[in-house]
């Protein structure tokens, strides 16, 4: 097992390395030159002191500023390998210092005028909060529903649920959102259509929680609804598979009570694929609500990312992207290891 885990971690590191190089090259394709814009901005602010100087002197000052900024941003060389290593923090910059990702320098958000880490903090907490709640709600509904459907296979209820779930997972999230806003905000008027708290208020304690809950209710309902389809079908399929195992027939032949057969014998066998699926879902807690955040105006990672893309805040985008990549890589690693733990065949096969 240990060897298997080490092998998987090794693979993961290689994949992460390749992806980071890929990302870095992609971002350097962009026609943005930050040193140039900053130097130009400096020239604007120095307008008064520059008055009376000739064009050549101005050009000289500009060049000086430009080179200074290039050094600071590590773009004073055309060599991509050097730039990449500087960004990671494995190669000294123009001042002879190692200052990259490995040293904890994640960059600076130009739009928010803060370091990227500070910018990301609040949205990350929000995203995690709503995703975790939605996941708990989702699992709480889908697992009982899936089990019920598998034990009542082919009955009217099951067929109905099958049709509803196929509609559920075929609908794009944004259409579900629009329909839900229409039902709950326009027709019933129960919830506010967007935002995170009543504007202009500064509640504390219980009122704050209630206020927040009122605003988060609709996004949470929508997210839960969107996730029902896929998971219910998955649980149902896994349960049907495990209910057709020989051991179940044996258990029934022995006269074990039907409840015990379903919840103890069959459910445990079905758990392996369900757990891996749920783990994959768990990975989504950092990024799964991109669409919802944008529609319901929730200050989360997805909204931050769309905002950064629209304002071309590149330091922020590349960091978010790397973050998503690493989260999903770690997720795959965890899934593989869990799979290896519960199912020894996997280890042997690979």
């Amino acid at each position, binding site marked *: 097992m240990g060897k298997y885990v080490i092998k998987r971690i090794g693979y993961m590191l290689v*994949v992460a390395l390749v992806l980071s190089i890929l990302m870095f090259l*992609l971002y350097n394709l962009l026609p943005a030159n930050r040193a140039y814009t900053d130097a130009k901005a400096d020239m604007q602010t120095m307008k008064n002191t520059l008055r009376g100087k000739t064009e050549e002197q101005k050009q000289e000052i500009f060049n000086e500023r430009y080179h200074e900024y290039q050094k600071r941003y590590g773009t004073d060389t055309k060599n991509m390998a050097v730039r990449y290593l500087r960004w990671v923090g494995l190669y000294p910059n123009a001042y002879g210092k190692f200052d990259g990702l490995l040293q904890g320098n994640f960059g600076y958000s130009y739009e928010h005028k803060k370091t990227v880490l500070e910018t990301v903090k609040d949205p990350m907490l929000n995203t995690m909060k709503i995703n975790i709640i939605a996941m708990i709600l989702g699992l709480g509904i889908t697992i009982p529903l899936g089990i019920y459907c598998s034990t009542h296979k082919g009955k009217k209820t099951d067929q109905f649920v099958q049709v509803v779930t196929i509609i559920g997972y075929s609908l794009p999230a944004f259409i579900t959102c629009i329909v839900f*806003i229409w039902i709950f905000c326009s027709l019933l008027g129960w919830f506010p259509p967007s935002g995170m708290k009543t504007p202009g208020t500064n509640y504390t304690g219980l009122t704050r929680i209630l206020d927040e809950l009122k605003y988060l209710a609709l996004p949470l309902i929508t997210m839960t609804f969107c996730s029902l389809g896929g998971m219910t079908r998955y649980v149902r399929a896994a349960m*049907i598979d495990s209910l057709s195992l020989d051991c179940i027939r044996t258990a029934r032949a022995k006269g074990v009570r039907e409840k015990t057969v379903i919840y103890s014998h069959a459910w445990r066998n079905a758990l392996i694929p369900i757990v891996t699926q749920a783990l994959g879902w768990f990975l989504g807690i950092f990024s799964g609500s991109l669409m919802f955040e944008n529609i319901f105006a929730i200050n989360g990672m997805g909204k931050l990312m769309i905002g950064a893309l629209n304002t071309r805040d590149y330091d922020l985008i590349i960091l978010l992207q790397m973050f998503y*990549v690493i989260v*999903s890589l770690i997720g*795959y690693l965890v899934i593989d290891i869990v799979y290896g733990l519960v199912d020894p065949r996997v280890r042997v096969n690979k």
Partner: protein
Amino acid sequence: MKETKKRSGWLRRLFRGGSKTLVEDNPSLAVEEIVSPMKQIVRGFFERKLAVIALVVLICMFILVFIGPLFMPRYYDSYTETTQQNISPGFKMMSVPSELSKDIRMIDGYGKFSIGLSNAGKVYVWGDTYDPLTKIEMADIPEAVQNHKIAYVAAGIDHAIAIDEEGHVYGWGATKRGQYTYYTPDQEVADDVVSIPEGLANGTETVDVANIKKVACGYQITAILMNDGSLYIWGNAKSYSNMDKFVGKTDLIDIDFTLNNIVGVTTAQNGVYTGKRGLFDKLKSTLTGKAVASREFLNGRKVVRIAATSKNVCGELDDGSIFFVGDAIGSNDPVPALHAGEKFIELEAGTYHYVGLTSEGRVLCWGGNTLSQTDVPSDLAGTTKLYCGAFQTYAVNDQNELVDKWGNKGYLFGTDKYGADIFQRIIKGGKMTMTIGAIAVIISSIIGVIVGVVSGYFGGKVDMILMRITEIFAAIPFLPFALILSALMSQMNISENSKIFLLMVILGVLTWTGLARIVRAQVLAARENEYVTAAKAMGVRERNIAFKHILPNIVSIILVSLTLDFATCMLTESSLSYLGFGVTYPRPTWGNMLNGVNNATIIKNFWWQWVFTSIFLAVTCICINIIGDTLRDVIDPKSDRDK
């Protein structure tokens, strides 16, 4: 019947063998029918009602989306129309009330609704009369108007004006921009509003009805022209920059409104009067002809009357010929030629089209034809009067009866916030969405199949490397990455078409990993089969074994994956476009058509702008998923039939 067949069949059985008949005679000899796997799949598929319905719906959708554009030659992507924004679905734009159609005095229209007046003095309103945002219903005609005998009516974009026989002026509809309410000069809105005279607004003053020459409404503006050349004019001066030149004018013989300018003819009759130098002063003899300075063009001839579309003005000269001034309009149907000695006795203008009645009784129509305004019916005998709405024309005979009407009936699914027909955009957008989905799926399948087969068949190092590459692509979080790539793409300096092609490539390149894994697993199982060993023994090239022997055996599984991936790609494209990163306006896709609606006001008030598009997108995806799921069930021999 069967008996006779059996008896007469002995000869056939003697010479041609009769195994089939024998089996029929003797059930114990019956053999199970042997069906090829493909046939089995097809048969299994058509046994399921839901799947067949889904398939039929999907095929209909395809036909609609790919053949539909052939039937809309006048459609273009960037079409916008200010006067037709947010119109609700329905075909009521031209539905003249039957009571009115036998007794027409006048009909007018500027935007979404038309107003009609009968000789009995009764006012009728039809068209898209309700504005959900302001909650104003134009069809709620004020009681004062209903109770009085009306002599003149006129309709603007969001207001209507009626004058009764005693000369009282009534207005209803929107009021915010001084359409008919009086503003004292110190009120805040007054700076860009020319107010209606106070006496007219509160009914203490009247207009001399017998001397009214023309009542006209433009975009939130109204003008009453008297026979003596004086003018009452009021309304929104912001949309008509030359309005101040007309206030207090006393020498006019005709007036009309384009979208942004007031045009008139003064008693000098020496051209189109706008009050501004350089505006509408270069005349042409055809819509697209060479523009000549007005004095030179007229050469002593006089302008008799004018009719204005949104950008172009047509006028009639005293020698019977017509001239044009202003920008070209729409598709520029050429002006039909007049016979020798023929003259226009009526000349009217809609938003983009002109219609004229000649002295020979012919009705001629030309100008913009985007909403079939100029498709004149063939039989219009007896027409003596023509009335123009915005995109409609009504022909009336000397009995004041409606002869015929033509033009825009309305919109099946309504219009969007730019005034474009949603139904046409759904068809065009569906074509785009489905094309993108299909090509993306083809790209992803080609990559997925090649990687899967090579990796599964050859194994070893190749397999190791290819599977690591697959892992890299699988580790990329899909939506964020696609977002970033399309954001990058939008900043590159490339044409819209290549952007769309790149979008397909991005979608394809990001979705192949699942298929590659499935194919690899299938090939791994298949390469242990006897037929592979046989092929190897015969010395068939390994490449051919992999792609010509093994691949056809797993094609059904690829088919399932292809179907389901098609739905996924369509959804992803829609999501990207919805967020504004895929295909962007003006090109329609089902995703970006929903782009503008994510706020509660539009969702509630302009429901038609999202309901229909959502239904099309949802139904297509649901059908594809049902077909894919059914195929999977049918193909998998282990799957339970009742599942």
